[in-house]
């Protein structure tokens, strides 16, 4: 946090320096829960931390374009370098909502997202007449675009018999099967529509969700939501962040164009999905206080990596390819076969990879007075079954299962980005 403040404050920019500082302040405040993990790494890892990469400076003036400039371009928020904060919300289409209502909602959301990603309001904060309620709620005024991206997903329910879209349903879109170790709370499962709003300022992300939910009223009702306070995955130019267990997570994420083509971007199973992808959302509760009491050697064995450097237990540095065969003197594999990285590795799963874009979340305290926190696990894949395959193995055998519970789950089709003058999913209604 100190480093971030120094950098943000040390780059005086007209109009943004105050916000940059404020952003640091908010991060510091929200980081209380994560502090244990970061602190543990901080003492020993001080040298390394001070030499961190340049991506840690946040420029809140940055914005991502919303509209596609070519064909088969994905929506922003999938390959976009993960922003610091993220809010996820799932909606149900209201009973009685018509095809036309869904169309208007997707069109209004698209236009509004284009405005929001540019750092603009969605309609007037104060109506010019001075009478009546404002269109935009106003709390993001002057905060800048903060690299906001909003990604819209369509759940399986959109393609049931309500909207005449059954014939357009992608073959790969179906509710996830029951998976080993699932402890799903019915209140945190499914949804007809999803919004993932990520930004480098938490209030920018929250404002986007709030105002988009407002636009949806009457057509869709809120089903469940998760507020991610810290990014837990890295883009190509970012350092790997840590989950709330204090470990670097997602070191071996999808990065290359070839892997995106092979594993993330959807083909022409349905014309309108070409260039899109599928979003799998899991709310994973983590029993962090129990974890904190676990012996460090056991923690490292569970992940298959060292805690500070994130190096595989088979040796090397963070980005060294793990060797799942190499054995210790006692003849056991150095990386336990039931460790998290062994079970998740593509080498051990017929090459299957998924794009992970998770965020740490906290919901305050649970009913037992323990810290209620975990991982908002956002996954993108061109076939939800890829996630299913991995989770079948992890849910059945992962040493980590003692400390985690999958409590929320949903799957959505994420159509490609619309061209200017169009909206998300428009070809569905043609």
């Amino acid at each position: 946090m100190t480093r971030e403040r120094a950098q943000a404050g040390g780059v005086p920019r007209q109009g943004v320096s105050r916000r940059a500082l404020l952003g640091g302040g908010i991060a510091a405040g929200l980081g209380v829960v994560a502090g244990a993990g970061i602190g543990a790494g901080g003492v020993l890892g001080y040298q390394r931390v001070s030499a961190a990469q340049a991506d840690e400076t946040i420029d809140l003036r940055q914005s991502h374009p919303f509209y596609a400039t070519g064909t088969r371009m994905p929506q922003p928020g999938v390959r976009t370098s993960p922003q610091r904060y993220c809010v996820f919300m799932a909606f149900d289409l209201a009973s009685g909502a018509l095809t036309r209502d869904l169309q208007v909602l997707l069109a209004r959301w698209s236009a509004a997202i284009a405005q929001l990603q540019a750092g603009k309001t969605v309609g007037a904060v104060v109506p010019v007449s001075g009478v009546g309620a404002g269109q935009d709620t106003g709390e993001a005024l002057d905060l800048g675009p903060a690299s906001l991206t909003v990604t819209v997903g369509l759940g399986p329910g959109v393609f049931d018999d309500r909207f005449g879209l059954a014939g357009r349903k992608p073959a790969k879109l179906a509710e996830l099967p029951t998976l080993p170790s699932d402890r799903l709370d019915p209140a945190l499962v499914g949804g007809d529509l999803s919004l993932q709003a990520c930004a480098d300022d938490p209030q920018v992300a929250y404002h986007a969700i709030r105002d988009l939910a407002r636009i949806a009223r009457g057509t869709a009702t809120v089903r469940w939501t998760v507020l991610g306070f810290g990014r837990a995955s890295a883009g190509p130019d970012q350092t790997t962040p840590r989950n709330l267990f204090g470990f670097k997570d997602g070191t071996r994420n999808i990065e290359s164009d070839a892997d995106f083509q092979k594993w993330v971007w959807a083909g022409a199973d349905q014309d309108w999905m070409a260039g899109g992808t599928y979003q799998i959302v899991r709310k994973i509760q983590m029993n962090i206080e129990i974890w904190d009491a676990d012996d460090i050697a056991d923690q490292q064995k569970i992940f298959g990596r060292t805690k500070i450097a994130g190096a595989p237990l088979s040796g090397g540095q963070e980005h060294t390819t793990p060797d799942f065969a190499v054995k210790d003197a006692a003849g056991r594999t150095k990386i336990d076969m039931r460790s998290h990285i062994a079970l998740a590795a593509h080498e051990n799963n017929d090459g299957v990879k998924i794009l992970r874009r998770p965020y740490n979340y906290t919901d305050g305290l649970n009913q037992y007075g323990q810290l209620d926190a975990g991982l908002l696990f956002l996954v993108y894949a061109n076939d939800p079954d890829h996630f299913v395959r991995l989770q079948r193995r992890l849910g059945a055998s992962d040493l980590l299962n003692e400390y985690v519970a999958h409590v929320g789950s949903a799957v959505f089709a994420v159509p490609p980005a619309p061209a200017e003058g169009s909206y998300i999913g428009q070809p569905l209604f043609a």
Partner: protein
Amino acid sequence: MPSADRPRLVLLAAVLGAASALTLAGCSSTTPGTPDPSTGSGASAVDITMTSGGSGDQCAASTTTVAAGPVTFTVQNTSATGIIEFELLQDQRIIGEKENLAPGLAPVSFTVTLDGGKYQLYCPGAQKEFTDFTVTGKAAAAGSSDTAALLAEGAKGYAGYVSARLSDLLDGSKKLQAAIDAGDIAQAKTVYAGTRQFYEKVESDVAGFVKPGSSPTDNAGNLDYLVDMRASNLDPAVGWHGFHAIERDLWKNGRITDDTKKLAAELVENVTTLTDLSKDLTFKPEDLANGAAGLLEEVQSNKISGEEEAYSHIDLVDLASNVEGARQAFAYLEPGLKKINASLTENITKQFQNVDRVLAAYRDANALGGYVTYDEATKKAAANTISQAVQALQDPLSQIAQKVATAS
């Protein structure tokens, strides 16, 4: 964000490029709109097109002068993400409008009959938001269909509704006093549950009155405080009076004391004062709209939580009454509002029906006041559903005030 990025509160002197359509920058060489041959009705046609441009969203009209008579506005948002609605204004009053505009949606249109005179085309969020619009000649007499007259008539009719409910409230309060004086707890509970609704239906219109001669900041003279104060917001200097103090005696204490009788007598006295003060109430159309939205705010802030009827748990009776009061206010505005914005009117009607449908599940003819007791179990099962349905109604309803506001 530089302020130039936020055009909606700033009127910029626009310099717009020439286009086949006249831009709303106010080009003077306008040609009168021609009757649209496709409709066969002789209506003039005006096309409004919204596009995004390098310097902001643009809003262009095919013409800015038409002859008096029926005029059809066809509105299409081609690529302007910042424009959600279009309005036709006269003297700051909305004559007609279209909402929910977004790029990619099919064009929408509305037809209005216009008298000769000066109007304005208003595109909130456009780089240039207002453009003068001229109607030449005179239209056939609009008569009773005139929107402003319809709204004014509705506001007058609503005043009658309010005074009828206050009169019901006074009758009910007297019956409550009679039951309490007779020491009949069961009867008093029944009358209580049957009387609360009248206050809840018009609360937002009558909540601002104080006893003659008393200060607005002194709760001792604040009639809303004296009639309707809940346990949660008591002013120790004034103490507890009114319906909810009686509710506590009947349900929590389970007995009628001399104090209860005193409270009932006071209630009748205060409701009488309120009725007298409200006798000559007049309303403007926007008062009805704000009142309706205010009643739904009551639902969301006090009824959903079960705070209003903490002892009798007849919150759903109050809640349904708030909704009914809002519906009445809306119904009186409906004839005029329909002319201004038919789809908004339709949506609000639909949302009222949806709230009715949700509430119907909690009706119970045998229960006090006709709704099931709002206990913890009911609240847990019902609160989210009811609240979301009411919110979906409250949002469009809160948009009405600016539509029906009379410039005065």
